[in-house]
């Protein structure tokens, strides 16, 4: 089922500002769409609007071609996994999973088959007759997934379902969820604030901040072609370096004049209109050239070295004290306090308009 949002806005009762504004989004059939963003940016609000649990203040929500704004939750053919799982405490795991089908008066036989099928996929057969209070967090999480699965809904909604699991289990469930999605092919909308979850699971990422979509697209674009400075800094760890400066005679000159970059030919064309204007340069830590063999090099002191095994994170300081983060292969030798000269991989430089924060090249 294709889900489309047209100019959706949300204002909560008793709030001055719109929580969400002008959300335009197309989620194709069979997509695994991850809504990503910092805490409080309105991800849950958006998901609950799609689920019909919050009203839509303005705009249209379409499932396929049908407008869903006023359709009650139960008629939207959706299933949702809540951040807190929301299992019914007085029912057994089996009854929890059977509940939605029982409410729709499906035959007993079909309900049983569906529950058993889901239980097998999720490997929860052993405690089908336990109460939710008697099973572990990870098991509850799977029951919550199972409860959503048995319905075979057209759209699958998940609100940070992995946020309360430990790191190992989260990693495992991430893979499981992707496998499940591949097997079922249900259009899924998944909310998280964890960029690793987004990058690994999504076929489409929607990054939000302060109620506005910053960028929507495939994970690769988020890393290699961030649409603005916010996206550039949100995705990737360690964070992308941003250097503020301006264009001077076709060259980028940093505010502190210690860094000068001559853009590649393709970038230079796009930067033509910005001559004399403020421009910010973004460069990922791993795209520095630590041997400094290329043209525009700069000198810096290696301040701190973090050894992560396969790579080293260098915190380097320029003469005026401003700091940059560089990642280098783990087998390179760096001495703390040593002078070093660094260059740039010109193909990997992101240019942003400092005024608007938008990408130029």
């Amino acid at each position, binding site marked *: 089922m294709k889900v489309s949002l047209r100019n959706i806005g949300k204002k909560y009762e008793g709030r001055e500002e719109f929580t969400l504004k002008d959300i335009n989004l197309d989620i194709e059939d069979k997509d695994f769409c991850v809504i990503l963003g910092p805490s409080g940016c309105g991800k849950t609000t958006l998901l609950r609007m799609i689920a019909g649990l919050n009203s839509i203040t303005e705009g249209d929500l379409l499932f396929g071609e049908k407008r869903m704004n006023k359709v009650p*939750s139960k008629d939207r053919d959706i299933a949702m996994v809540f951040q807190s799982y929301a299992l019914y405490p007085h029912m057994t795991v089996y009854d929890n999973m059977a*509940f939605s089908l029982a409410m729709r008066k499906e035959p007993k036989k079909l309900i049983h088959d569906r529950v058993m099928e889901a239980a097998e996929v999720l490997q929860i057969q052993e405690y089908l007759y336990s109460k939710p209070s008697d099973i572990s967090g990870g098991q509850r999480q799977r029951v919550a997934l199972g409860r959503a699965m048995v319905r075979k809904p057209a759209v699958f909604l998940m609100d940070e379902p992995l946020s309360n699991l430990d790191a190992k289990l989260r990693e495992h469930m991430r893979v499981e969820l992707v496998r499940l999605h591949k097997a079922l092919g249900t259009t899924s909308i998944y909310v998280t604030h964890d960029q690793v979850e987004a990058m690994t699971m999504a076929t489409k990422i929607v990054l939000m901040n302060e109620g506005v979509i910053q960028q929507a697209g495939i994970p690769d674009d988020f890393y290699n072609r961030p649409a603005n400075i916010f996206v550039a800094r949100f995705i990737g760890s360690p964070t992308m370096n941003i250097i503020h400066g301006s264009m001077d005679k076709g060259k980028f000159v940093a505010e502190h004049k210690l860094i000068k970059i001559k853009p590649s030919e393709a970038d230079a064309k796009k930067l033509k209109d910005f001559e004399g204007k403020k421009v910010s340069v973004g460069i990922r830590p791993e795209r520095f050239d630590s041997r400094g063999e290329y043209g525009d090099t700069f000198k810096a002191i290696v301040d701190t070295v973090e050894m992560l095994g396969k790579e080293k994170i260098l915190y380097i300081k320029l003469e005026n004290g401003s700091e940059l983060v560089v990642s280098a292969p783990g087998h390179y030798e760096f001495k703390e306090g040593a002078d070093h000269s660094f260059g740039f991989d010109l193909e990997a430089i992101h240019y942003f308009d400092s005024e608007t924060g938008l990408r130029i090249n």
Partner: protein
Amino acid sequence: MSGLFRKKNSLYLSDNQPLTVVGMIGLVVSYVILLSWVVAILWPLSQMIMSAFNGKQAQYLMSNRNFAFSWKHFQFLFSETLYLRWVLNTLFIAGSTAILTLLIVSFTGFAYSRFRFKGRKASLMAIMLIQTIPAFAGITAYFTMHSIIQNYAPWVTRQLMLILIYSGGGIAGNTFVLKGYIDSISTELDDAARIDGCSNMQVYRLIIMPIAKPMLAIIALWSFIGPFMDYMLPAILLNRPQDYTLASGLFTLMNDFRTMNQPAFAAGGLLTAVPIVALFMVLQKQLVSGLAKGAVKG
């Protein structure tokens, strides 16, 4: 490891730490306090039981060294007084009060907890304030109301009036209590139920009510016990002995020297406990709370 060969029943299985000496002394002290408390409750009770069964006891309840077991006070109760009638009256009033209170409080508690509407806060405050005025204070109003109502609807008897007063008086406080309990149940459960296909009524009936059962059981028990304990309202409002409740009926065995029979009063009081204990046993399982555990992550 020797632990491997230890016998099963010698394993320490409790989740509590083993007792220390201080803990042991504390335990003894607690038991002493509890035991004296038990004595304080049981002594008068035993006196009452003794006189109820004491055939040597006449009219007045005095410490009496002579004891002869007999059922005669009970016989008196059933043959010479309207005791059975009073029991039925009380059961009817108490049962109706409990059911009516539960029904109304279910709606109001759920609504106040889950819905946002104009005047929600104000009306909740008003309810609390009204609650501080005892039901008895409105006695003259009840009288007038009753006489007016009876002009139009003669079937509203004084007993029905009493039921309305009891349940009306209980609604305010119980709404507050139940709202508090339902507030503690995650609204995500409602949302999940709604997506699963429940209407508002079904959300309450299938999800909230079973979780709130311990609180509902307590409310039912309280409203049921109320009419057993109250003497004032029935004594004033009910004017025919055959309408009396247990409390007002039994009191005629105490205060009116024509019908005075104090040992029979003791016997009647003893029997009064039976329906309450029965209800308590039925509700016992519900009264044990802790169901809401495990609804959410943890």
